[in-house]
């Protein structure tokens, strides 16, 4: 079986339809390790790949006023038992372009790996980008993910990001996102992570509300069990009139897991406002009892609540 066929099977196994790799109307990149398996540009979405020995650079441009109907898929896998994957992705949305990306981190078969993803995203005036980043890991706990992103959202632009790592062991996750929002820009950052055993999660998400009436929400949902640890840092700075930011962090911990939330709120304009809420603890007893009186066992109720917050 070719690597590409294995790749297609892997994509299907996480609930995606690998036929998207043949669809002429769907832009995509498919990469195993550092090897480019497939790429496709479509009208309005240009994808250029530059390959070095241990670094691959992708440049993706969406032309102005283009509304891309099918999501652009970025698919990453590693079939070797051990390895390193180093990627830089530059995404540029020209004015009033609208597109969504789905990134698949397919690491269900690898034992030891390092996945480095460094994104720069520029969203021009009135453009809209939705970026869903779903990781699927093996049970080895030997995967390291270093993911960083620098994002600029122009006037009246929109950026939505949803990072999830809820299948398999996290291993070590270092996530560092920073967003600059201009006038009337809207930013939503959502992350959902389930840590097990001795998984280690370190996540920093920062939004600078530089423009007037720019808005942002940072929402983090983390479940931890075993001896997993998580440090979730959310930073929002309100620097302009009418800027509104909110951060909402919920961590559910079981066993000997340790969760930490660090909200940083900075406001430098008298007409800006930033709020935050954080809750860390075991599962709410009233929620458990409500599900139990509906016929679930304690274990079933616990699982359902955890899955719910990671939904």
């Amino acid at each position: 079986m070719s690597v590409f066929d294995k790749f297609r099977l892997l994509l299907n196994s996480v609930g995606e339809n690998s036929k998207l790799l043949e669809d002429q109307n769907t832009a995509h990149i498919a990469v195993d390790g550092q090897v480019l398996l497939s790429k496709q540009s479509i009208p309005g979405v240009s994808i250029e790949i530059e390959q070095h020995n241990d670094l691959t650079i992708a440049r993706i441009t969406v032309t102005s006023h283009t509304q891309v109907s099918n999501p652009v898929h970025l698919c990453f896998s590693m079939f070797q038992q051990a390895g390193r994957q180093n990627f830089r992705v530059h995404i540029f949305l020209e004015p009033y372009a609208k597109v969504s990306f789905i990134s698949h981190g397919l690491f269900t078969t690898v034992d030891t790996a390092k996945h480095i993803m460094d994104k720069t995203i520029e969203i021009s005036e009135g453009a809209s980008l939705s970026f869903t980043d779903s990781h699927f890991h093996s049970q080895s706990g030997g995967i390291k993910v270093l993911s960083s992103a620098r994002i600029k959202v122009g006037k009246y632009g929109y950026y939505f990001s949803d990072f999830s790592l809820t299948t398999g062991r996290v291993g070590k996750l270092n996530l560092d996102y920073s967003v600059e929002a201009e006038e009337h820009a809207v930013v939503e950052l959502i992350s959902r992570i389930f840590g097990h055993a001795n998984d280690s999660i370190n996540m920093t998400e920062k939004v600078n509300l530089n423009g007037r009436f720019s808005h942002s929400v940072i929402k983090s949902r983390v479940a931890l069990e075993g001896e997993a640890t998580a440090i979730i840092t959310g930073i929002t700075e309100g620097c302009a009139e009418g800027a509104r930011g909110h951060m909402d962090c919920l961590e559910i911990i079981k066993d000997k897991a340790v969760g930490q939330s660090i909200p940083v709120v900075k406001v430098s304009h008298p007409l800006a406002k930033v709020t935050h809420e954080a809750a860390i603890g075991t599962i709410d007893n009233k929620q458990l009892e409500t599900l139990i009186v509906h016929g679930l066992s304690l274990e079933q109720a616990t699982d359902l609540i955890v899955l719910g917050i990671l939904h």
Partner: protein
Amino acid sequence: MMPLLEIRHVTFIADKEPILDNLDLIIQEGEIHALIGTNGTGKSTLARLVMGCEGYHTNSGKIIFAQQQIDKYSIEKRASLGISMVWQEPAYFEGISVRDYLNLNNQENLSECLLSVGLNADEYLDRMLDKTMSGGERKRIELASMLAIRPRLCILDEPVSGIDLLSINNIISVIKQIQRQGSTVLLISHREEIASIADRASLLCGGKIILTSTPEKVIQSYKSRSCVICDGRECNHVSI
């Protein structure tokens, strides 16, 4: 009728304060039994003791359900025997839809259950049970869940709190429907129009049941300020 739930000489003390004091109460199988009393008299405490919620276990006395002494049973075990409960302020859940919630035990007729509580299935089945839902909507979902799971004993703690006045008649009909489906209902309320639908009622004051009779008589006693237990102090009665 046979007793389904017997509460015998139950005492419950919290923070060294007696909340329930040698309380006796019998709920007959198939009836709606209203438990009436002013705020803070221990109605919700009694509900949680019967359900076996965490932190609510009798200091003395017995709770017997369907001829089994259950006061040492876990909440799971009690639920498995057919006891269920709607809290005065139901819990909210992120990421759990109304459909998932009503379908926890693979029940059928979810749409009909929602319709009975005045909610449109097309609009609500895919809604999340999170804070985007109002208190009244959440309470209706709980009542719909009781229609779906058909417990043997259904404890309803203040079922109309958070419900708008215009919808109270709808909730009353739902409570009667729960009974018609075969459930016995312990109906906790301090509202006359709700308690009056019961087959029998009991008045709780000073940690004791001071009267069990028809709803009319119990409501009359409640309103006539004739409490002999607290001499009007605890339940705001002004004279014996």
